[in-house]
């Protein structure tokens, strides 16, 4: 019996996301953003915090914690460096805002990049010497750094020492949105925007080179370095990006709080942020967001037990860590589900095709196994090409089902069938004569292209890259089929034999799983047929499945794994070539009833 694990929120969420189409994803994302954006209006609900006003709590601690946790997560979660001095970057941002805000005329948004830059510089300066250290030693050094920053600020005159800096200006209003102390909705939206930018940044980096480098460093730093990952560089990058987020949070915090003092930047803040990261699920963006939200919000929500709220907080940490040591939403690289594959790539069940009163196919059952060459033979008018036309969506079957690789066919447009992985050649050659051989194949490769007309027009990077990739792939196919020397010739000027083979090349251009060849040997002399047989085998050996209509018996018997015989729209034989060859019904169909039979 399978017990559903209701605690497995990660897979639950990931499943929904994975199944969603692009449009649905955009809709989910926008709805979530909207709902979170409306949160400050929920102050009257069960969520309300007893003492501090709800929208203020949403800005600090909740929003700030989420932001800083995401920043710290780049360092701790992504690249596995334990940083216990993260508060230093927050402090640097906050003091940049405080000092520049009170001594110059610059506003918050002008100071923001300076604060971020200073935090990043501090990150690099700290990172270059210390990031050679690992594990606990790094933790201690960063902890020391955090304390040094606080103590310097506490004991210096430019920072006004323990008195802190007051009268820090608020951010100027953005359009109609005014920043107010009593009503912090706008602050919340700004924090939210910063969080979204951070999430976007992390997601972009994670699936690209930096993300892979960090992951490799986290799992085995020595191996990473020996495999050519410049580990120190990527560690410093990770540290510096984390610092940038911390600095940005600091600038906004100072500008919201209007007053800052050294006591706000103690080791406890670093630890609390680290707790958010680990509590929620280290390395998992959504886990971190949830963890920080809970740990930021909880102490304010349970203020009714006023004094004991930190005690409860401590107990929650211990309990959760003991029972969910990987956090609420643990990190786990989800492996793509291995789909149980049907042996049959294509399956026709009881397919009947009627044209008016004529029954072209009558209850045909046909299976094409993966990786085989299946020949479909039969006298003229037996319905062979009709089978092809039903599969490729030229005709829709009157009844019965066609299943291709788990997808039921019948309602797709023709090009959609091709995109699923079915490609064909034509009995009567149908190349685009006024295009070169290469262009013929490239056009076929375009079926999987994502970029469109606008991208091509303006040369968007993706469009250019795809163009390049497809051109290269087309050349490869022409080489594979052995006609690359004709690539720049117009298709109509090619010799007949080359045209036939170009048809196959064009079909392969669509990256099919199943290749339908409609009388590929028509009009070939024996030598060409031998060559063609070799090509078809080569195609099969490269992993394609081949369904072949042919009349030439020697070719069929030489290369087919199985032979299916149709006669008047009905399947009369389905077996290996040597058996089919001797089947009396087949012989009868081709040659008529032998004289001595009845």
């Amino acid at each position, binding site marked *: 019996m399978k017990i559903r694990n209701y605690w497995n929120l990660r897979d639950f969420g990931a499943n929904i996301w994975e199944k969603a189409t692009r449009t649905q994803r955009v809709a989910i994302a926008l709805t979530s953003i909207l709902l979170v954006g409306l949160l400050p209006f929920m102050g009257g609900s069960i969520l309300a915090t007893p003492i501090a006003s709800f929208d203020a709590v949403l800005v600090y601690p909740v929003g700030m914690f989420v932001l800083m946790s995401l920043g710290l997560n780049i360092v*701790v979660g992504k690249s596995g460096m334990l940083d216990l001095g993260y508060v230093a970057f927050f402090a640097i941002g906050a003091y940049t805002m405080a000092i520049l805000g009170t001594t110059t005329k610059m506003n918050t948004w002008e100071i923001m990049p300076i604060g971020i830059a200073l935090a990043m510089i501090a990150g690099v300066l700290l990172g270059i010497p210390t990031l050679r*250290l690992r594990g606990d030693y790094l933790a201690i050094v960063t902890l020391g750094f955090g304390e040094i920053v606080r103590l310097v600020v506490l004991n210096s005159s430019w920072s006004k020492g323990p008195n802190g800096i007051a009268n820090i200006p608020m951010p100027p209003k953005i359009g109609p949105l005014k920043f107010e102390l009593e009503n912090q909705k706008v602050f919340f939206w700004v924090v939210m925007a910063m969080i979204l930018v951070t999430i976007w940044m992390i997601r972009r980096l994670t699936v690209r080179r930096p993300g892979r480098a960090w992951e490799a460093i986290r799992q085995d730093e020595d191996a990473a370095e020996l495999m050519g990952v410049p580990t120190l560089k990527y560690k410093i990058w990770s540290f510096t990006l984390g610092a940038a987020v911390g600095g940005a949070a600091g600038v906004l915090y100072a500008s919201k709080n209007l007053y800052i003092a050294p006591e706000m930047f103690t080791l406890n803040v670093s630890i609390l942020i680290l707790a958010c990261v680990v509590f929620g699920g280290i390395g998992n963006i959504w886990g971190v967001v949830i963890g920080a939200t809970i740990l930021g919000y909880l102490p304010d929500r349970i203020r009714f037990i006023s004094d004991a709220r930190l005690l409860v907080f401590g107990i929650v940490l211990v309990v959760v*860590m003991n029972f969910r040591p990987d956090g609420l939403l643990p990190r786990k690289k989800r492996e793509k589900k291995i789909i149980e594959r049907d042996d049959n790539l294509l399956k026709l069940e009881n397919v009947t095709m009627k044209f008016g009163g004529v029954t072209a196919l009558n209850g045909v059952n046909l299976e094409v196994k993966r990786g085989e060459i299946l020949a479909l033979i039969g006298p003229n008018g037996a319905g062979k090409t009709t089978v092809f036309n039903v599969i490729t969506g030229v005709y829709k079957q009157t009844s019965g089902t066609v299943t291709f690789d788990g997808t039921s066919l019948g309602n797709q447009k023709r090009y959609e069938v091709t995109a699923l992985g079915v490609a064909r050649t034509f009995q009567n050659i149908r190349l685009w004569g006024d295009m070169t051989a290469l262009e013929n194949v490239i056009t076929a490769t375009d079926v999987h292209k994502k970029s469109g007309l606008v991208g091509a027009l303006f040369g968007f990077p993706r469009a250019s890259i795809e163009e390049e990739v497809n051109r290269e792939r087309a050349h490869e196919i022409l080489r594979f089929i052995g006609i690359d020397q004709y690539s720049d010739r117009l298709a109509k000027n090619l010799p007949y034999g080359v045209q036939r083979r170009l048809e196959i090349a064009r079909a392969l251009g669509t990256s099919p799983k199943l290749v339908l060849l409609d009388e590929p040997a028509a009009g070939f002399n024996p030598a060409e047929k031998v060559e063609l047989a070799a090509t078809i085998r080569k195609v099969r050996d490269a992993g394609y499945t081949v369904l072949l209509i042919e009349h030439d018996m020697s070719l069929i018997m030489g290369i087919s794994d199985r032979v299916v015989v149709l006669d008047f729209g009905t399947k009369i034989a389905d077996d290996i070539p040597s058996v089919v060859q001797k089947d009396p019904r087949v012989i009868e169909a081709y040659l008529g009833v032998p004289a001595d039979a009845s």
Partner: protein
Amino acid sequence: MFEVLIDQFWSLTIAGVALGFIYVLVSLGYTMVYGVLRMINFANSEIFMWGTFGTIVTSRDIFGYSQTSAPATGPKLALVLFSQLLMSMAVAGLTAVFVEFVAYRRLRAKGTNRLATLISAIGISIVLSELMRLLTDSRPVGSPRVLEKIILTEVWGANIRLDTVVTIFAAAAIYFLLERFVKLSRMGKAIRAVSMNEDAAKLMGVNLNRVITTTFLVGGLATGAAGFFYITVFEYTKFNIGFTMGMAAFTAAVLGGIGNIRGAFYGGLFLGLLEVYASAVLGTQWKAVTVFIVLVLVLLFKPNGLFGEAVQTTRA
């Protein structure tokens, strides 16, 4: 800038040694646990804090001393001091065992990641300090003076006070007892065996759980003793006193080479002296910065500590 240091060199040195011995004992709480588990005993600072309260409760509530009563003398003095020491050690030792049970044991059995254990330990130290904050109403608690701070003698212009002398000699004695214990006793050998090679120790019949609990207990006892000496010298405690002490003692452990008992001794004394000299030269407010800068430099250039033998070089 250096006048104070030169003028008061000897009295500073004596104060530094006394402070150093307190650090030695607290850093044993870190170093022993680290040696066995390869993990920072994050709650050790709060174990220390609970020890200091054990000391005060003994003199104030059991023996009925108050801020105004006269210091004890003769056999009574010995009895009270000894009870205070024992109580402080007992409280801290039990707290340490409690920490191991609640925060470490389950996670260790599961063999899960170190960060989870760290957060769990952070959680328990928040619990310990918050509990004490609630019990004491966030107020500092002064200790009745049990031991009169008599000036015994003067050496090279430095006053030798009774409490300093008691601290130095008693703390040194406790340190050497513990070192003997770890070196010679059966359990001590088991502890060292586990810290060298856990698997081999298990295969040789060492009961890992008992060793780890004992390690926490011994570390707690040392830390508790430090709590007693701290109260004897400074006569004051508060629920958040553990943080500064913990940071310093931890630094001392690292300076000496964490995981190494002898290292805690050198590291503690070195740090105690460094702190008093640094405050004399730069002013008290820069004391902590000096300590951290030294720590960072040591870690960068001699990551195994100034005095330690190589422990493990990589710790994930």
